[in-house]
């Protein structure tokens, strides 16, 4: 949705420079990116999950140094056993730059074979990705001092971290809301042990990634084991009823579909602009497989809607444009 320019997507082998586990099912990988890398919050990379790394090399068509000699070296039987799967699209969660070096971070939740493969990549190994892909969140115009409400649910908090950094660098004010199912399994860096607050909404600096950007955060858990008891959108609603001083707001969200739908409903009720980042299965991420289509409102179409690709006309969409059914 942003008008800012970025770089065209490329296929790159990037080294894993740091790997940190979070909770039981999350891994954060920091990847060394080329110096000309530019990406905006909300954009994603599509990461290869290759069961046989040598197969990638063989398909490059370049000689491989090995005991078996020069390429081609794979036997017919070896080839028939290769088990490739399509890439896994992952939001760029954070972007760091230091003179001529750039790092991008991805947050990976263990779901199936593909995500577990990516999680298992050790420091020093190469990760093959295509990116940056997709559109990005749009910050309010520079003369618009509205408060940006950043809402992340579970692993969906990934692009929200990068958005917090981005807004902080541009001097925008923001308030974070982060929700998880329970306190024991959160994909965030907690600066201290979280305490339950029941139905009380409390913004603190407990979430490290938001604190780095100077963004106070309200924590919510479904079971009430940490912070507000309830969903993250219920926490936001409680904040609006009790603590909101009626200054103009803008919502930004990423998380499970029910959360995004609830956030969109809340935005409509209070007439707040709302951008959400969608997650969909993608065959390619570059607009050729047509699998990640979502229903969007379209008055020009007789049906009232049209299908749009999440990878090209997304993942960030205006929640008013979505038809969630």
């Amino acid at each position: 949705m942003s008008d800012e320019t970025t770089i065209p997507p490329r296929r790159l082998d990037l080294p894993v420079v740091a790997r940190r586990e979070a909770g039981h099912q999350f891994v954060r990988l920091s990847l060394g990116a080329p110096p000309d890398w530019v990406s905006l919050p909300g954009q994603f990379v599509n990461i290869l999950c290759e069961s046989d790394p040598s197969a990638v090399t063989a398909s490059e068509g370049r000689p491989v140094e090995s005991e078996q000699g020069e390429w081609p070296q794979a036997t017919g039987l070896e080839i028939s056993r290769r088990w490739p799967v399509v890439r896994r699209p992952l939001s760029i969660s954070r972007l760091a730059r230091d003179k001529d070096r750039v790092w991008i971070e991805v947050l990976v939740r263990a779901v199936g074979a593909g995500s577990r493969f990516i999680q298992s990549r050790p420091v020093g190994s190469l990760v093959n990705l295509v990116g940056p892909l997709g559109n990005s969140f749009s910050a309010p115009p520079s003369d618009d001092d509205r408060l940006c409400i950043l809402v992340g649910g579970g692993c969906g908090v990934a692009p929200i971290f990068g958005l917090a950094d981005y807004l902080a660098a541009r001097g925008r004010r923001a308030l974070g809301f982060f929700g998880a199912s329970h306190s024991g399994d959160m994909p965030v860096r907690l600066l201290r042990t979280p305490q339950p607050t029941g139905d009380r909404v409390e913004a603190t600096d407990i979430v490290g990634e938001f604190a780095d950007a100077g963004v106070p955060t309200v924590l919510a858990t479904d079971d009430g084991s940490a912070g507000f008891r309830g969903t993250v959108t219920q926490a936001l609603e409680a904040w609006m009823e009790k603590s909101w001083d009626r200054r103009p707001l803008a919502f930004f969200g990423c998380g499970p579909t029910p959360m995004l739908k609830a956030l969109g409903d809340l935005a409509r009720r209070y007439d707040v602009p709302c951008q959400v980042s969608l997650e969909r299965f993608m065959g390619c991420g570059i607009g050729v497989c047509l699998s990640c289509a979502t229903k969007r409102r379209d008055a020009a179409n007789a049906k009232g809607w049209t299908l749009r690709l999440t990878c090209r006309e997304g993942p960030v969409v205006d929640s008013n444009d979505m038809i969630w059914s």
Partner: protein
Amino acid sequence: MTRPNVDLCVTLGRIAMRNPIATASGCSGYGEELARFYDLSRLGAIVTKSITLEPREGHLPPRLIETRAGMLNAIGLANVGLDLFLREKVPALAAHNVPIIVNVAGSTRDEYLQVAAALDAEPRIAGIELNVSCPNVKEGGIEFGIDPQALRSLVEAVRKRVTRATLIVKLSPNVTDIAVTARAAVEGGAEALSLINTLRGLAVDPWTGRPLLTNVTGGLSGPAVKPVALYMVRRVWQEVAGPRGIPILGLGGVQFVEDVLEFLRAGATAVAVGTANFVDPETGPKLADGLKQALEKLGCGSPRDLVGAMDLAK
């Protein structure tokens, strides 16, 4: 062994390809998406998404899922329609200096004829690939693709309208004997055959009983179908294409250079890359570069030397 100078050129009907690597229909959009990653002129040809007379939105999602070593899709022939394709997509694609093959789908005989004739009148289009094998929409031509008499009659009728472009017929694997439909297509006037389209498949949520695709059934592609595709290429090459000098565009699970060698040996003159474009958008040009090296290693001066070359000695 001295290494030969490898010439990768092949011809598919009257289409001169600078190498035997094409992209498969439905897996390379209208070219512009892949052109963000490489110069399309590094391909032997590009085969576009299926074009129908009117624009089509396709099926509702989910319309593609991953399976073991493959994918099951039911996109439903989503495309911009003939008019917009000719007006916008062809001029954009023509700038890339790569032979354009347009896949054509229809719901009626008349629609096939109308679309094929309009495409034949556009000189920037090198070939027309008749899709008589889409398993996913009832209008996708599969009734032509599985009935040899209907297929022969359709190809004959299209042949009368297509006088300039090379006419290719894309065959369905969802038949008892693919040699029968291959023969019908060639007798109807096909100058080349492409095979295989996807295999019809099904995936169900075991706990809820819901099909995983909105369309219920879909077409299976990717490495999982490669052995089936190789067998069918071999069968068609032996029974129909080889004896009559009809080139085969082989596809189904082509991802690595070794796969290209296998398809050539089974009887294909050229191959098309489908699902692998999703895994790596640069697969096509990499296969072309890699094939040159592989042929050098094999001591072959041309991919033509390998077509049908299997060692069946006991």
